[in-house]
């Protein structure tokens, strides 16, 4: 009986407390992923910051003669009318997309949160638009917004909304509309998905008791649904901002930023600077401006998530 309390005589092991051992074990599982993320994303990010303050182009990259030039790249960008247009385009594209994809997505979410037989399968099938390759979506957009044999013009002519074909992607005033429309087609199912899951989390009984108290459908939406959905709404708007602001593939394939930079956004502009003109530092500076905008919204999003986590 006493033997149990004595330290084992033969094998004397340095004993690590079980809690510490578990922490170490967990760390070993997490570390590869964490290090991968820090190295593969963190290092380029830091490198990009440095790059944006240098004058690196193809020649100075090969010769290793690039120098730090302070804020010159940023000054050059902000005084360039094309960049100003690009910045404006990015904002118009983002806000335009957010407004339509959110309202339509919310309307669809209200429908698909109801319990009916086809709710699940149809809700899922709409997500194909969200998951399919953006380059195909962009090509499809290029086709249906075509001038002579485009679906959109054909439909609008048949309804009588327009009397002659609109040159959607050829004219600087309409190209953005076409690009926003295609982006909404991708964004709507995403908004619907997240908002539906928010809606189904609201307990039925709240609506039942409100109905008993004589609340109208509008009152129930305004005073129960909207306040309870606030976190989901904020999340979907912020994520929507982050996903839309960084747009690249859609414009690259559908319009190549044209006509005359009318659909050029920060993502495509940074690409052109770095890989068409080979002005890597200018591309990096454009990327930094893109990153700062994402970071501001991203921090709000992280605060929201942190609040839910606690």
């Amino acid at each position, binding site marked *: 009986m006493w033997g149990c309390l004595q330290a084992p005589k033969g094998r004397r092991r340095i004993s690590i407390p079980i809690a510490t051992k578990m922490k170490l074990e967990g760390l070993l599982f997490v570390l*590869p992923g964490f290090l991968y993320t820090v190295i593969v994303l963190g290092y380029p990010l830091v*490198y990009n910051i440095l790059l944006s303050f240098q004058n690196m182009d193809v020649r100075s990259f090969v010769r290793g003669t690039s120098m730090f030039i302070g804020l010159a790249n940023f000054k050059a960008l902000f005084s360039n009318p094309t960049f100003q247009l690009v910045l404006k385009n990015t904002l118009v594209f983002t806000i335009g997309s957010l407004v339509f994809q959110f309202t339509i997505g919310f309307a669809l979410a209200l429908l698909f949160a109801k319990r009916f037989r086809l*709710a699940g*399968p149809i809700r899922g099938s709409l997500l194909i638009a969200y998951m399919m390759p953006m*380059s195909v979506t962009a090509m499809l957009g290029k086709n249906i917004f075509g001038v002579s044999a485009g679906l959109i013009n054909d439909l609008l002519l048949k309804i009588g909304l327009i009397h002659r074909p609109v040159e959607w992607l050829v004219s600087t005033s309409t190209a953005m509309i076409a690009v926003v429309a295609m982006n909404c087609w991708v964004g709507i199912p995403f908004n619907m998905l997240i908002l539906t899951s928010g809606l189904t989390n609201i307990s039925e009984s709240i609506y039942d008791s409100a109905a008993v108290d004589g609340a109208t459908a509008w009152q129930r939406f305004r005073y129960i649904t909207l306040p309870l959905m606030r976190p989901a709404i904020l999340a979907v708007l912020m994520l929507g901002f982050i996903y839309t602001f960084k747009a690249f593939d859609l414009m690259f394939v559908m319009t190549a930023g044209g006509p005359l930079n009318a659909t050029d956004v920060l*993502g495509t502009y940074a690409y052109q600077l770095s890989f068409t003109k080979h002005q890597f530092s200018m591309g990096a500076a454009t*990327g930094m401006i*893109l990153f700062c905008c994402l970071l501001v919204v*991203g921090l709000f999003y992280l605060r929201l998530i942190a609040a839910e986590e606690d």
Partner: protein
Amino acid sequence: MKMRFRNMLGSREARGNAFYNIISVIIAVIFLFPIYWLLMMSFKSDAEIFSPILTYFPHDFTLEPWLLNIQDKEFFMSLRNSCIIATMSMCLSMIIGIPAAYGMGRYKVPGKRVMLLAFLVSQMLPPSLMLTPMYLIFNKMGLLGTFWAPVVAISSGSIPFIVVILRSYFNSIPRSLDDAARIDGCNALQSFFRIMIPAIKTGIITVAVISFLGGWNDLAYSMTFNVMPEMRPLTANIYKFQSKYGTRWNAIMAYGAILVAPVVLAFIFLQKHIVGGLTAGAVKE
């Protein structure tokens, strides 16, 4: 009181049900019309494509646009590249991402909050930002012109996604399961491989599919890091029918349909899981 009305309510509900079903079918038809358009165009003949009159159904149904793609050697090269890039980035992301998700979901790891923050922030770093610095770094490392360049870049986006999704899956496994495993003499690795991974099989399949599609859909990284035509995936070669003879939309649409096929297949077989995974990845509940 409530009991008495149940019958009445039931029939009203059934009528509401039919109404919602019809409305949702109409919405799906309108919303998915572009997908129908894609498929329908891919069966049109050249004459119909170039005719000024737009048809909503192929008048002389032909497989020629599909054959045009399938008989092209370059097409198979791109298809092979797409498969390689998607498979490699899926494997790399899962090998690194799944253990990380396990550690984050089931252990009290020191610095957990900071690491979670790092994973969440990294989901906000878009290709359009990372292209320039990665291109220069990969150039110095001699990785440009290899599949590793796009694969490493794509995985950096999939890994945080896997961590965020699977963390909650791992967290939901009852604690008693690890205790049982330990008592049976499993060490940490054994219980991870033999008990934890099989316990969240659906989660694993979901992230496998989503990270495969992430690599399959990639355009920016693959196109920028590998300029040689024989290294390019399908997404980067989609406009090859544009310059040759005007725009052969039928051939492009057939090409697009092939590119969309894995997405559609994934939805047919795994819809419920993918929907759940996407939701969990976007917002923490």
